[in-house]
């Protein structure tokens, strides 16, 4: 095995910040979208819904959990234009990531909401809270506390899964790695470097998760 030599990669170092920015942009925007979807879908699915609405939400969750992310990404970017819906690759990536992760996280939110004591609803009702106020002020803050670890796992997964976006015409971290590999033929160094960058990003997220959990747990003994 040849010794590690990172020097051939140096001329491309200037491209790294932009690729990192796009990776983070897709990861963060995708996660924010997933968060919104998860809260809305999870809250709705924890309640008794009209049959059609319940079926639709269940269909969404099952389809996105039951099909590969790559297929979903191809469908959104290459398939939807046939239906007249075109979007930029970054937008397609964010939408797919958000929808995919939202389907998983909505189940976490649903379970967390169901874990909130029924007495909390009764107490809120007797104080005059409307069902919407009860959900926003009483139930969701308690459910979110329970859901934080799975949410941060979801965030971490999205960051890692952005590498799949390299199949689209967008230069994020993995795509940059592939392109530099094509020019330098130093795959060993390139993919070690990529791995280290992804690891650093997700490792930072584990600290963020612990900090968030501590903050959200200040009311628990």
């Amino acid at each position: 095995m040849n010794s590690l030599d990172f020097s051939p990669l140096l001329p491309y170092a200037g491209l790294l910040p932009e690729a990192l920015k796009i990776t983070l942009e897709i990861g963060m925007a995708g996660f924010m979208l997933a968060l919104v979807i998860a809260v809305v879908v999870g809250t709705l699915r924890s309640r008794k819904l009209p049959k059609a609405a319940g079926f639709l939400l269940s269909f969404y969750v099952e389809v996105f959990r039951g099909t590969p992310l790559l297929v979903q990404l191809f469908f959104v970017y290459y398939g939807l234009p046939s239906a007249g819906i075109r979007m930029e690759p970054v937008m397609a990536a964010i939408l797919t990531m958000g929808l995919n992760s939202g389907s998983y996280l909505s189940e976490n939110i649903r379970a967390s909401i169901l874990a909130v004591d029924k007495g909390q609803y009764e107490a809120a009702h007797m104080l005059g809270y409307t069902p919407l106020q009860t959900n926003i002020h009483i139930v969701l803050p308690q459910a979110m506390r329970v859901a934080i670890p799975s949410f941060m796992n979801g965030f971490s997964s999205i960051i890692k899964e952005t590498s799949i976006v390299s199949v689209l015409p967008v230069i994020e971290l993995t795509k940059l790695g592939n392109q530099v590999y094509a020019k330098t033929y130093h795959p060993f160094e390139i993919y070690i470097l990529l791995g280290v960058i992804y690891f650093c990003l997700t490792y930072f997220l584990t600290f963020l998760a612990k900090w968030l959990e501590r903050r959200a747990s200040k009311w628990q003994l």
Partner: protein
Amino acid sequence: MAALIAMRDVKKSYGENVVLNGINLEVEKGDIVAIIGSSGSGKSTMVRCIAGLEDIQSGKIFLRGEEIIDRNSVVHSIGMVFQNFHLFPHYTVEENIIKPLRTVKKMDLKAAKEKSEELLRKVRLSESARQYPSTMSGGQKQRLAIARALAMNPEILVFDEPTSSLDPELAHEVFRTIKDLATEGQTMLIVTHQINAVSHFATRVAFLDSGIIEADGACKEIFENSDNQKLKQFLAMVEFNTI
């Protein structure tokens, strides 16, 4: 003048299990009604029906002479204190009072804070204002639950076994607070097994057995002069010492 709360032939079942079998009860303004009876007699279900937390199968419940059709309509008139407190754990002690005032009554922060301070003083919890409920004793939690219910200015305060999950010492703290409210003329319905404690301030006692009010009258009448056999058996069972 119509009674504050009136129940007319109220029946309630869970499947085949009949819990309330024709309840008739009137509660006047200023009444402090202790509801006693053995476990499973229907006491809690009765007050939960009044509070609109349970549907009834037949009969009628009136609030100030008007039949309660929409269960949500009673929440501004009735305050409820639960056996297990049901405080909001993510709020501090003072926030448990301030937030509902802000959210439901749309009160401004300054007024809500003043109201919270006044109520916490009343239930002797001023020192704990910035703590979270998880750090408090059961008695303190229940006193906070009382303060929270009072914040909404309910005409009638309903207690569902407020001291059942407390040690005698902590139960005493809670009864002291309830007694203070009694002297202020607060209308109250109290489901309890602590007959000795409520006998000091209840204006009336209703005894339930198998979903029926078997006896209803002044404390002395119920505890000393009633010849209802079921009541006598119940009182003997709880080793009640006459007042």
